[in-house]
């Protein structure tokens, strides 16, 4: 199981930034981090699916995480990065502004997501982590997946 199921599973997280907000992912779900490259647009895909890229021969869909989290559209530029993640067997890329850190987080540091109004936040943020005056939002990768067929 690649995605974090419970907070106690956590050991290390990869922290990254979208706009002014900081997010993180369980490091076990991250396969690699690469620079942005143009995608091939898929027909009738939801707006947050940017298309597919060629990852050493595999066709990998790229999610615009800012759009998925309803943070407003993020126009990709060369300085942006793609975090390649693996959830179950599905490989998925996340477009983010920048990767900042790899942090070790004790399970007790994860707090429940504060009850805010945004539906996207409630769906995709599993919890928040307070660390050194910062707040990391823990992404629920399974919720982010555009499951096959539903996207069309």
């Amino acid at each position: 199981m690649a995605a974090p199921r419970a907070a106690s599973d956590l050991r290390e997280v990869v922290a990254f930034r979208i706009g002014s907000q900081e997010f993180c992912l369980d490091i076990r779900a991250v396969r690699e981090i690469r620079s942005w490259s143009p995608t091939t647009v898929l027909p009738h895909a939801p707006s947050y699916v940017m298309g597919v890229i060629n990852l050493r021969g595999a066709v990998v869909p790229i999610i615009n995480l800012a759009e998925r989290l309803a943070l407003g559209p993020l126009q990709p530029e060369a300085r942006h990065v793609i975090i390649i993640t693996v959830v179950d067997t599905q490989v998925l890329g996340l477009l983010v502004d920048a990767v900042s850190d790899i942090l070790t987080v004790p399970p007790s540091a994860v707090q429940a997501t504060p009850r805010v109004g945004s539906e996207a936040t409630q769906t995709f943020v599993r919890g928040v982590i307070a660390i050194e005056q910062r707040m990391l939002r823990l992404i629920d990768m399974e919720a982010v997946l555009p499951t096959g067929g539903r996207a069309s």
Partner: protein
Amino acid sequence: MDQSDIRGAFFVECEDLVEALNDGLDRIDESLDAGPDPETVNAVFRAVHSIKGGAGAFKLDALVRFAHQFETTLDALRSGRIQTDPPLMALLHRSADQLSDLLQAARMGDASGSENATILAGQLAAAAGEVEETNDADAEDFGFVPMALDFDPVPADGVPAAATGGVFAIEFSPSRALYACGNDPSVLFRVLADLGQLEVQLDRSRLPDFDVLDWQDSWLDWRLTLITDEPEHQIDEVFEFVEDLCRLDVRPVVAPLPLPEPEPGPAEAAVAAEPVRPVEQRPGSIDENRASAPRATVRVELERVDRLINIVGELVINQAMLSQCVQDEGVAPRSPVRSRLDDFKSLAREIQESVMAIRAQAIKPLFQRMSRIAREAGDIAGKQVRLVTEGDGTEVDKTVIERLADPLTHMIRNAVDHGIEPAERRRATGKPDAGVITLSAAHRSGRVIIEVRDDGGGINRPRVLEIARSKGLVPEDAQLVEEEIDALLFLPGFSTSAVVSDLSGRGVGMDVVKSAIQALGGRVTISSHPGRGTTFTISLPLTLAVLDGMVVDVAGQTMVVPVAAIVETLRPRPADVHSLGSGDQVVAIRGSFVPIIDCGAIFGYREAVRSYHDSVLLLVETGRQKLCALVVDTIHDQRQVVIKGLENGYGKMPGIAAATILGDGRIALIIDPEEVVDLGSADPFALPEA
């Protein structure tokens, strides 16, 4: 390795053995006049024997019983007690089919035999003219109970070839009464064998069809050849007790037959004593025939091969990208970097081709299956049909072979049913009674060409046209050229009609064949000469991993359209484009109107364009014979592309078949013309109105 693994390995091995078996039978067929090559008969025997051995280990009783009887008959053939003739060969072929069926059943977990197997086993027993098992036949049991039988009544050596006493030809036809008195020919033959060297040959020509057979009567005759030192009356003495119960003719063969070699080897004496048949095969030449021994092979999981193919595809793309980079850097054309890169390029290509070749398999097993289909269809239709295969060593992608089985079966059945005329009509036109269907495979310009050719009556074009008109598939007044009439057979309407079965032409289910072939990226065409036969030609890509694609631009996106679907490309004149209803447009092409589908709009890349003067139309033909014009912006070029599945990464998208990676490393989507046409025409209709 646990039990199920070993079992699995056994069945895989059996596939090879069945292939070897069919192969051997075919070879015996070919040399029917000259008599079978002993080594081939041995190979066939060994194949059945190995299957029996394995089946015994897994307690597959029905299989063991049948294989045993089969083996017994083959052994009789091997030892020369029975001779090959067309009825026997037909029986052996049917038995090989049955063995393969039993294997299939056993694989599915059904260890029980079939009625058919029992009947065939009985026929095999009868054909073997089993000396040892006559008792069983008498007891109304046809001897498919496994028995330890020692089949070597003819000592291959030991008896001096120069047995001077004489050679006697004995014809022995027992009457019904002989059996009724409890006599047994095998006992007589055994006593005869004690006198010298005995050849026993069964004549079962009087044996009627199995369903009309009176088992109490006597149907079997024997011809025996005895080389002995003993005088003739010794032979008479053997038959003394049955003299009035049989027809017996003992006559000395006066001059010893001239032997093919001045100094015959010991094994040859038995053969030479056989008075009817010239012996071409000399024992000494057997070794030379062993050259056809199987080459060493490795069994590999398909998944591993696929992984390798993927990686090599990457290598080739990577090399193309590297070349692009080097060029962009402005490296001089004659620099060492460039020339090393060229070496790398040719190596990468070579690796790719070799890896692709791993998946390739000879088409032979498929063709062998088709021989069986032809035999069975011939039996059902009551026609004499011979299937001739050519180029069965041609290598085709494994997946292609698997998916060709159904369409080919259909075509062979069709050829037997509709192509080949009944014997009396063939005779009337001066053709031999037996129809010949030729199945051939060959590589031609990067594709595999498979032909199904018959020497039948050809397509009855007036009749085809008449039916098409009566079913409203073509307008009454349409003038069609011959090719267009032939192509009508591929229309779906043709397959459902009851009228068609009376048709002397063809047409049953050909639309199914056509769509199956198209699904493989291939095309099928017909050519027919009245009175001389019909040829169906299938043209297929070498592998399913690579596709001939036309690289096009659609609303700024690079996409690929399979060339196999494209009939032609054209730039429409504004006058040819007409609006039809609200927003739909059609283009006039040679008098008929073809619906226009805008790919950019279908895929949601842009609003539908209203004028096509900047666009290119790809006229595509889909399985259901609909012509459609796909609008694209520009055509780049035509090239082979490596197919990448999308299902794992994203899921199925309507109108998209797969993806591929272009030379610059970017992904291009491959359009599925069939689906695009379905998406574009909410209410599909069969043919454009003329």
